């Protein structure tokens, strides 16, 4: 077990190394483009250009450039954004991590819990009006784009009905640090959590329902019935348990992507300065050091999420434990 974990950890490091090399090559070694000019930004003076060239090692071989870049990101942490006039990149990324993590973790808890309940209820009452209603609502949730839903949420809770009893508790947009103001942190995030979770509740609820219904056709469910178990026990201990594997796969992919910046639209709509927003702004300004740092960060989370999924697999499915 320990060995398996260590091996998986080694694989993770290797994948991240690969990603860092590819990203580095795309942005800094594209033929015909001068990365120094990009980094220095428009209208940079020749002195700045020379300084950039020297500090990033662009006058030296590629592997030196790569090592310098990684050193600036991971060791000294002094990677500087010239586009944003001396803004330190690493602290900027570190500052936006808690925002994105708060948003995505909260939404993930919400969507996992709600979609498991929906999936079970819909599968248990298959083809009834309740099942049909839940699946229709799920489809509705999937169909509503998050930027539109977010704006509608804001329209209702921030402006139209803000003064009514229902939404007067909603604080203005923006992020509050958990350590400064836990209650404010929670209240500002409630509406973003719901908004982000709705899409995934729809997808996961439908996926889980289908998986449970498929498991219910299996021979071992008939065995469970022949054992004289209650329908509830058959559903929860036998059908649900074997259905969670597909669910976990999907969760690992979505969670990793969201933490890595895919929650951009939600972040923008609710004025949360998270990783997505940071990456988006960096791309707008062609802020190469910032892009490099955020991509490294995002890949790290995707890779970690995938590793965690692999471990959960092993917990869920003993058949994978053998080798």
């Amino acid at each position: 077990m320990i060995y398996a974990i260590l091996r998986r950890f080694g694989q993770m490091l290797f994948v991240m190394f690969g990603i860092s090399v590819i990203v580095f090559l795309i942005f800094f070694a594209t033929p015909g483009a001068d990365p120094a000019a990009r980094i220095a930004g428009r209208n940079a003076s020749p002195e700045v250009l020379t300084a950039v060239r020297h500090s990033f090692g662009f006058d030296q071989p590629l592997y030196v450039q790569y090592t310098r870049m990684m050193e600036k990101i991971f060791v000294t942490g002094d990677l500087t954004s010239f586009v944003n006039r001396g803004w330190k990149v690493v602290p900027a990324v570190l500052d936006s991590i808690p925002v994105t993590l708060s948003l995505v973790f909260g939404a993930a808890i919400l969507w996992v819990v709600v979609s498991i309940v929906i999936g079970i209820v819909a599968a248990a009452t298959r083809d009834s009006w309740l099942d049909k209603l839940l699946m229709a609502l799920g489809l509705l949730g999937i169909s509503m784009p998050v930027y539109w839903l977010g704006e509608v949420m804001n329209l209702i809770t921030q402006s139209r009905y803000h003064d009514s009893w229902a939404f007067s508790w909603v604080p203005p947009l923006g992020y509050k640090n958990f350590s400064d103001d836990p209650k404010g942190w929670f209240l500002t995030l409630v509406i973003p959590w719901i908004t982000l979770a709705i899409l995934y509740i729809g997808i996961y609820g439908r996926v889980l329902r289908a998986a449970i219904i498929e498991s219910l056709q299996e021979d071992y469910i008939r065995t469970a019935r022949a054992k004289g178990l209650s329908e509830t026990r058959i559903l929860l201990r036998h059908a649900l348990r074997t259905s969670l594997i597909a669910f976990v796969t999907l969760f690992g992919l979505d969670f990793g992507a969201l933490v890595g910046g895919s929650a951009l639209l939600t972040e923008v709509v609710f004025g949360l300065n998270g990783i997505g927003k940071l990456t988006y702004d960096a791309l707008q300004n062609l802020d190469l050091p910032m892009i490099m740092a955020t991509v490294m960060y995002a890949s790290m989370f995707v890779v970690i999420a995938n590793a965690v999924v692999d471990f959960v697999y092993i917990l869920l499915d003993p058949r994978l434990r053998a080798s």
Partner: protein
Amino acid sequence: MILSVRDLRVSFRTNEGLVRAIDGVSFDLEESEILGVVGESGSGKTVSLLAVMGLITDPNAVIDGSIRYKGRELVGLPPRELRRLRGNEIAMIFQDPMTALTPVYTIGWQIAEQIRAHRGVSKAKAMQRVEQLLAEVNFPNPHEAMSRYPHQLSGGMRQRAVIAMALSCDPALLVADEPTTALDVTVQAGILDLVRKLRATHKSAVVFITHDMGVVSELADRVMVMYAGRVVERGTRTELFSDPRHPYTRALLGSIPPLTGDKPRRLPAIPGSPPSLLRLPQGCAFGPRCPVRYEPCEADKPSLGSGAHAAACFREAQA
């Protein structure tokens, strides 16, 4: 009398009309008796026993007739009551041990689950019982086997685990649905020995479904031959093998290669194939494949006589 089935009918509503899978099946089972149920695929042998177990979950199934277990009517019994019998007094062994166990739990856990569903015992007590059961079905190392997952066991071992599970609550009636079909021949023999031994120790009555005449001749006290949802012949094993009366039974026995004497160049086969249950002939369902059919066979369905050894055939009634 453990089980008494009278005029059991099971139909399924389909897009193409009502399919009658079981059409008036009756049989009795005495305590610790082994009844062999023989027939081709689709002859209704599995469906009739699933009906006994109350395991036909298809919402389009219609079940008629009477199934009495120890005098108690099972047809129309509330699910909760039926569940108390299932796994406890009536247990089932399934055809394919590869898929019959939930892949994510250990053997021990799955057997203990059944024990605890019916007996209010502690987990430790249940586990003790599991170890005892696994020893009884000849697991070489029962204690270790308890913590094995199904995929870690061979087919024969899994079937032993399924049998141990079926026996866990000392059922009075054991339904075995082709338990040896998916196994190698050598493993089959072991399982048959096991069933015989367990019948002796647990005093369970056994309904043994199979399409293998050889298995029936080794194991069964009485035999029931089914064709297209009906019983075509019943009798004791000796009666049936020494004096088969229905042409279908004769044909089945004729297609077993003889162990002694000259081997036939070609094994005789029954011409044609079983009829579709959607388009059963008006007369005898075996009629179109029958070597001795004559006029009455086309007009009416022959009924099974009331004797202990009886065949549903007009030729038989004539003789």
